[in-house]
């Protein structure tokens, strides 16, 4: 097996650049991550959809227009879901689900995923899911646990242990306490 190509010039690797040091996320971890993301997207979609439906119910809209609005709504939801993944993959490399599972999508050389490759990966996920999810089966056999979408977008999904939300909250509290201790006490007396 050959290593990944180095990160492009000027881009620091966001995980270990040595493929041997990395642990690639497997199918079960990625499924759990996807379930968390799907739940999050569904909750947002339901809230927005119900809100929009309630507002539209107040208006007398013709049947034809309702159909057009439904199509527009479906397109907006699809676009929103794609944007959700694309934005998270090309910014932090972690969707909220991936953050919970402490995994990260990285590009060649452990660099951040570029937006166009994030879009390609999104399309890859859809294509992998179409033939009864057969596109995800290679994750079980590939040496770097890559699925069809990873192969298409030249990405890998690696484990990215980090501070948990509780740890981050604790660190914040400590910082606030330290800052309040460093502040000089208010001086009394008449000026």
């Amino acid at each position: 097996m050959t290593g990944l190509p180095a990160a492009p010039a000027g881009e620091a690797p966001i995980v270990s650049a040595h493929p041997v040091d990395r642990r690639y996320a497997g199918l079960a971890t990625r499924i759990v991550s996807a379930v968390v993301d799907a739940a999050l997207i569904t909750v947002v979609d339901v809230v927005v959809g119900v809100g929009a439906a309630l507002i539209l119910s107040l208006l007398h809209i013709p049947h034809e227009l309702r159909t057009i609005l439904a199509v527009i709504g479906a397109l907006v939801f699809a676009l929103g879901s794609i944007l959700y993944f694309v934005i998270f993959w090309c910014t932090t490399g972690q969707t909220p689900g991936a953050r919970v599972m402490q995994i990260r999508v990285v590009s060649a050389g452990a660099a951040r995923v570029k937006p166009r490759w994030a879009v390609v990966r999104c399309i890859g996920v859809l294509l992998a899911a179409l033939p009864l999810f057969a596109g995800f089966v290679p994750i079980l056999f590939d040496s770097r646990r890559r699925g069809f979408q990873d192969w298409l977008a030249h990405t890998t999904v690696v484990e990215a242990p980090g501070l948990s939300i509780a740890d981050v909250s604790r660190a914040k509290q400590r910082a606030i306490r330290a800052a309040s201790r460093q502040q000089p006490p208010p001086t009394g007396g008449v000026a």
Partner: protein
Amino acid sequence: MGLGTRAATATLRPIVGVAGAAAEAGLDLERRAVNRVLESDEIERVVVVAINSVHIQAALKQALESDGAAQLIDTLFDSGLLDRFFERLLASESLWNMIDEIAGSPAVTAAISQQGLGFADQVGDQVRDRSRKADDWMERAARRLIGRQPRVLPAEPDASS
């Protein structure tokens, strides 16, 4: 007032003055002595020695283990004093104001939210751990199915690193 009384008063006046001055001086001396003792390290040393004293500790232990101490506790509870104390305490408006203040304080709310996050953390750790094991198990099973060698996994990252 008779002549005799006036004569006695005039005679005793210097003596009373001297006695008063002597008493005043004595009190002043006593105050200074007490202050010096309190300001010195001697009191602290005496207290420490007394607490560390084997005899005092043995005496305390004996007193606490005695029947008298048990009876004293029984008497305290039987007297209804504690019941009355708690009744009054619970009826007190100040107590509930204090509880409201504590419950609404940022430190307490932060502690409660920390506890919630800590629990979420534990659940997350468990899910991650189990999913990692499932990853490896599924991969091994799939590779066994097609007769391929299991993949050599890199070592678990050291927690201290």
